[in-house]
C-alpha cells in the first residue's frame, strides 16, 4: 500500500513537471459567427468569453466532451465538442475532432460488474478485444466472496455477437477456459485448492451512450478435478463497460 501511494505521488509530481514542458498545440479557426467558451467542462457552466469568426483558438486538451481552448488574447475556457467540430484548420480542412467510436465496430472494451458465482457474491472486471466485429477475445478476473470460501477466477475465452449491428440488445454466446483458486474460510478445507475449468456462456450486450455499454452474461462451468465426477458451477453477471 505504502509503495503504491508513493508511486502515485511520484506520478503526480512527474505530471506537474510535464505539464510545464513546451508542447505543440492544435490551432483551429472559427468559421461560425462565434465560438462560445464556458467556465467549466459541463453544460451548466456559464459562457465567459466569445471568439469571433476568423479568429483562431489553441486547443490545449480535452476532458470528456469538452475542450480547453485559449483565445488569441490569452483567455482560456471550455468549448463543447459539437461547437469545436465546426471549426477548421488553417488549411481549411475540418477540425480533426475524433468521432465517437462506433459501437458495432469498436475494438477495445473495459468493464466491471456484479454477479453470482456458485451462489457467492461475485466482483468481476474484464477486458475485451474485438478480433472481428462479431468475434471477441475476452479476459476476465473475478473474485467470488462467500461464507464458506473465497474464490479467485481468471478466464480467457472467445465470444460471438450474433448481430453486432443491433444497438440496444444483441445476444452473445461464448466458450473458454478458466482457472479458479479456492481460499478456505470455514473448515473442512476443500479437497483441491485450485482447478482448471471450461465454460460455455450466453449473454447480451447493448449500447447506453457515447462510449458506454452494458453486458449481461450467464456461464456454465465444468470444473476438472481428480474425482471421476466433474463438478459443475453456474454464474451470472451484469456489468458496465467503456469501449474504444
Amino acid at each position, binding site marked *: *500500500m505504502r509503495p*503504491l*501511494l508513493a508511486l*502515485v*505521488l511520484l*506520478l*503526480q509530481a512527474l*505530471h*506537474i513537471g510535464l*505539464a510545464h514542458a513546451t*508542447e*505543440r*498545440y*492544435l490551432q483551429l479557426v472559427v468559421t461560425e459567427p462565434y465560438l462560445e467558451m464556458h*467556465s*467549466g*467542462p*459541463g*453544460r*451548466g*457552466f456559464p459562457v465567459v468569453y466569445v471568439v469571433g469568426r476568423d479568429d483562431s483558438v489553441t*486547443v*490545449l*486538451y*480535452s*476532458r*470528456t*466532451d*469538452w*475542450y*480547453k481552448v485559449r483565445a488569441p488574447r490569452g483567455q482560456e475556457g471550455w468549448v463543447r465538442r459539437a461547437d469545436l467540430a465546426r471549426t477548421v*484548420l488553417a*488549411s481549411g480542412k475540418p477540425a*480533426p*475532432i475524433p468521432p465517437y467510436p462506433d459501437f458495432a465496430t469498436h475494438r477495445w472494451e473495459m468493464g*466491471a460488474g*456484479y454477479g453470482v458465482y456458485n451462489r*457467492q*457474491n461475485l*466482483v468481476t*472486471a474484464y477486458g475485451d478485444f474485438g478480433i472481428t466485429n462479431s468475434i471477441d477475445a475476452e479476459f476476465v478476473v473475478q*473474485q467470488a*466472496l462467500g461464507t464458506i470460501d*473465497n474464490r479467485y477466477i481468471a478466464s480467457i475465452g472467445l465470444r460471438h455477437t450474433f448481430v453486432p449491428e443491433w444497438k440496444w440488445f444483441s445476444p452473445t454466446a461464448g466458450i473458454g477456459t478458466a482457472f479458479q483458486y479456492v*481460499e478456505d*474460510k470455514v473448515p473442512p478445507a476443500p479437497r483441491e485448492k485450485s482447478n482448471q475449468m471450461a465454460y460455455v456462456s450466453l449473454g447480451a450486450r447493448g449500447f447506453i*451512450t*457515447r*462510449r*458506454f455499454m452494458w453486458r449481461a452474461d450467464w456461464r456454465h462451468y465444468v470444473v476438472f478435478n481428480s474425482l471421476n465426477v466433474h463438478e459443475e458451477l453456474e454464474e451470472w453477471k451484469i456489468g*458496465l463497460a*467503456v469501449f474504444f
Partner: protein
Amino acid sequence: MENRLSSVLLAAALLSGCSWFHRGERAPAPTPVVAEEPQADPSIIEPQVNRREVKTPKIKAKDVELGGYFGALSVQDFGTNPIYGVRAAYHVSEDIFLEGYLARSKAGQSSLENVFPQITVISDSGRRFTYYDLDLGYNVLPGEVFLGRGRAFNTALYVTVGMGDVKFADKDQFALNFGVGTRVLVTDWLAVHMDVRDHVFESTLFGVDKNVHNVEATLGFTTFF
C-alpha cells in the same frame, strides 16, 4: 572577409550535398557540378529543400484521474482510526465516471475488549482493515465555488455506488459501498476531494449475523492525466 564568404559557400555546398543523402527514394541527379561553382546563386539550392509534411498536433485527452487520500475510518464496534489509500477514475462523460479505490486501515479495540481486557475478539493481524472498491460515480451538482471576488473554482458534488472486497478479521467479505463527495478543481489538472463513504458488509464477529457500517471521511488529492 573573403575567407568567411568562401567558408559560407563551402558550408552551403556541403549542406546541399548532405541533403541528397536524406532524400532516400530519389536518385541523385548530377547537380554537384552546380554546388561546386563558387558563384552559385543561393536560389538554386532552395528547390532542394524537402517539403515537410505538416503534422496536425493531436489533442490530449485528460479523462483519467489518479491520486491518493487519507482520513478517518470508523470500523463498527472497533473505534475510529486513520486510513489511507489510492484512487483512480476514468471520466466517461461530464456526468458519469468509473472509479477504483484501494485502501488500508487498522481497527482498534472493541468496547467488549476495553471492558474485559482478557477477551480478544480478533487477533492483531486481523485488525488490519483493507479494501478495494469498483464504483460508478455520478456528478449530481456541478458548479463553481468562489474564494473572495477574484477566484472561482470548478466543483462537483458526486455520489458513488459500488462494490468490492473488505478484508477484516482475516476474512475477505463482499462489501457494498455508498458515498458522497465533492471535487474542487484548484487548477484544471489538480483536484481536492472530500468524501464520506460507507462500506457495508455482513459480519458474524459477535455471534449474530448483522450488517456492519464502516464510515470513512477522507481528504484526497488527484491529478488529471
